[in-house]
């Protein structure tokens, strides 16, 4: 059995929020609902320096997430009804000393655990410890050639082959141990790195992860990363050629809906965070990663290094921030960066709030990775 027995059920360019009608209805009744998914990091640090990395814009007061803190946090997540935790956010969680413990403990507690990583330290030994406990593991890999990999991801060329070998080992482990984990690769595409689309799609076909996803790059509301959304259309032919490299066990998936959105939003209120919040690698609890920087202090709800998460979640401050985002005072079109993590959830909930989606009716069978909306 593989984690990708039916590729049509793996939703990477959409939202699974419709499968949580009960939580949507509770939210609409004005109840305090637990987030379904929490995206977080165990550290703000990273051993890479990708030139498009949004984490450069997310600095805030750093605290150290210790084993005790993360164990309390995981207990609290289970207690209030969180379903899945992805270790992505604004730091490289695999280099945290508590990474393996976090994944294993979360899994033991019944949480779906996932990880986004550059894959550099995920050697065979470490992978053996965490792969059985993960729902998915996604390796950020934004080039198909060693020299361009080094240039784009801010590392030495030797890192390219090391990570390739780590991916080969993980794929072999998954097959040998018949693990359910989905292994993916991810390219964060800047338009001027389009030359790497096909080399990477071919590399993926050789390494044999379950999928390669190609996504847009997010930018802040002031365009600090200088992502030129008007240039993405020039990559469409290459992206379609990359998709054609898919086969029965390897899918190249393009996040067309976000790429074609060209950084724009159809909605102004932000309704997604009660369903899906983010924590910085500093322990900061905020509604969204784009609001991690100290600049957005008014949205900062608390820090798990200073207060139990269950208390943060039930605090007036938490709900004051959630209410602010849903109020006429807030305008995501003006105040937010582009294409945030909650974007697809926001689109769905906004349609619902505007009366254009009166029935919550998920289509088809329950998809994979349902804990990650």
């Amino acid at each position, binding site marked *: 059995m593989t984690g990708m027995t039916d590729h049509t059920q793996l939703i990477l360019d959409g939202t699974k929020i419709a499968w949580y009608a009960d939580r949507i209805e509770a939210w609409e009744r004005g109840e305090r609902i637990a987030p379904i998914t929490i995206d977080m990091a165990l550290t703000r640090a990273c051993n890479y320096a990708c030139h498009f990395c949004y*984490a450069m814009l997310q600095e805030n007061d750093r605290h150290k997430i210790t084993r005790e803190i993360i164990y309390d946090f995981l207990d609290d997540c289970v207690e209030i009804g969180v379903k899945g935790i992805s270790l992505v956010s604004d730091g490289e969680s695999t280099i945290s000393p508590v990474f393996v413990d976090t994944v294993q403990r979360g899994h033991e507690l019944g949480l779906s655990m996932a990880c986004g990583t550059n894959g550099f330290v995920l050697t065979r030994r470490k992978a053996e410890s965490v792969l059985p406990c993960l729902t998915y593991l996604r390796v950020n890999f934004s080039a198909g050639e060693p020299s361009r990999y080094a240039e784009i991801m801010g590392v030495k060329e030797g890192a390219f082959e090391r990570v390739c070998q780590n991916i080969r080992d993980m794929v072999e482990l998954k097959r040998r141990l018949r693990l359910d984990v989905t292994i993916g690769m991810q390219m964060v595409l800047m338009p001027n790195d389009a030359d790497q689309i096909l080399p990477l799609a071919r590399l993926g076909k050789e390494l044999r992860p379950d999928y390669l996803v190609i996504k847009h790059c997010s930018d802040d509301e002031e365009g600090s990363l200088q992502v030129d959304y008007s240039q993405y259309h020039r990559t469409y032919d290459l992206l379609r050629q990359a998709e054609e490299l898919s086969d029965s066990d390897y899918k190249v998936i393009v996040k067309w809906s976000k790429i074609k959105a060209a950084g724009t939003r159809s909605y102004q209120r932000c309704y997604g965070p009660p369903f899906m919040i983010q924590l910085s690698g500093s322990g900061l609890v905020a509604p969204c990663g784009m609001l991690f920087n100290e600049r957005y202090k*008014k949205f900062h709800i608390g820090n798990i290094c200073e207060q139990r998460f269950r208390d943060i979640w039930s605090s007036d401050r938490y709900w004051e921030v959630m209410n602010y985002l849903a109020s006429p005072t807030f305008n995501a079109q003006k105040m937010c960066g582009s294409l945030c993590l909650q974007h697809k959830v926001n689109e769905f909930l906004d349609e619902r709030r505007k009366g254009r989606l009166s029935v919550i009716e998920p289509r088809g069978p329950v998809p994979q990775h349902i804990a990650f909306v």
Partner: protein
Amino acid sequence: MHDENVTRSVAGIIDAASTSSIEALNIAFSQPSFAELQLEALRQALAPVATIEVVGTHERPSLRVELKAQVAVDSGAQEPPPRPQPVHGESRPAANPRPEKTDGQEPIPQALAPQYVEAVEAALHSIKHGGELSPTIGQVHLAVAEGEVSLHVNIDAQSHAICAARHQGARSRNEIALVETLCRLLPGLPVQEAADHGALRVERALRARAEDRPVPGVVMPENASLAFRLPLALTRKLVSAYTEATGYSGHANHFDPAPSKRWRATDRADRLAELAEATGRWCVEHGLSSDAVYPVEVLDDHRVIFALDEGPDRRRAQSLLMKLERSLQSQVEGTLELCLQEMRDRNKLRQLEARPSNRNDSR
């Protein structure tokens, strides 16, 4: 029970009681009736009106209902203004004097939570938008109705912005306050914004303090009180009528209220001085030193960058900044958005190149 639906029947009893001077009542059930009762749904629907507790025995269950002090429902009702006269493009008001069903829901009790009492009273004391609205040349004149209550608007067909709004037919104090507030807020809004967020704006305008929320979670017009379905229904019918009358094919909503003319005409130095004065005053009123928080820049007319003195406990900074923002919006300029200075990335490996010069980094 007169209604086949036990829950609806009980809601009707409590709703009726809420309009009287009754403070509490007990409702007894047979076991089969009690089994059919959707207790949580009832509690949610009537939360602004009453608290409900299960008492009695297993064989003879009862509900103990404590009615909350609230805005009167139909007492003090005014004489209804005259019915609207049909005009070109009008959607005819329904004949049914009861509130219409909205989205398949049953007719609604019209109670509002205590958070709205003050603004309801204020709206009732200053009614300026009741009565007739004359069509204006070059503007689309429309009328829509929800039950007896009708909304009349003139809309600029070029910009799709509402130029004027009037209401007729509201009877109860709450209805009058709701549609009066709606008509006060509508001018200047594009018709799409009115449909998308008109009721949300009415809810916020009628709540005395943003932090005084009627529900524990996220406030929406429908969960704040079922009474807010009136402005919701009217504004949604309005955009439908406008679409029908003009062929408008909107949906995309990029409405962003512009800063006031006064603010736009104020130069940078004067803006900062005005903000500094208002902020200093606010700090003192809140037990802080007058320069505990101070403005350092205004970006794009609306975003004010503040610096935070080391004095205030940074853990309190979130709530202080929220409060300060609300204060400056009401006293200085309604479109202001408050931020702190940016904190630069401390990761030694990452280098951010070609950053704009206006970000006001703190370190």
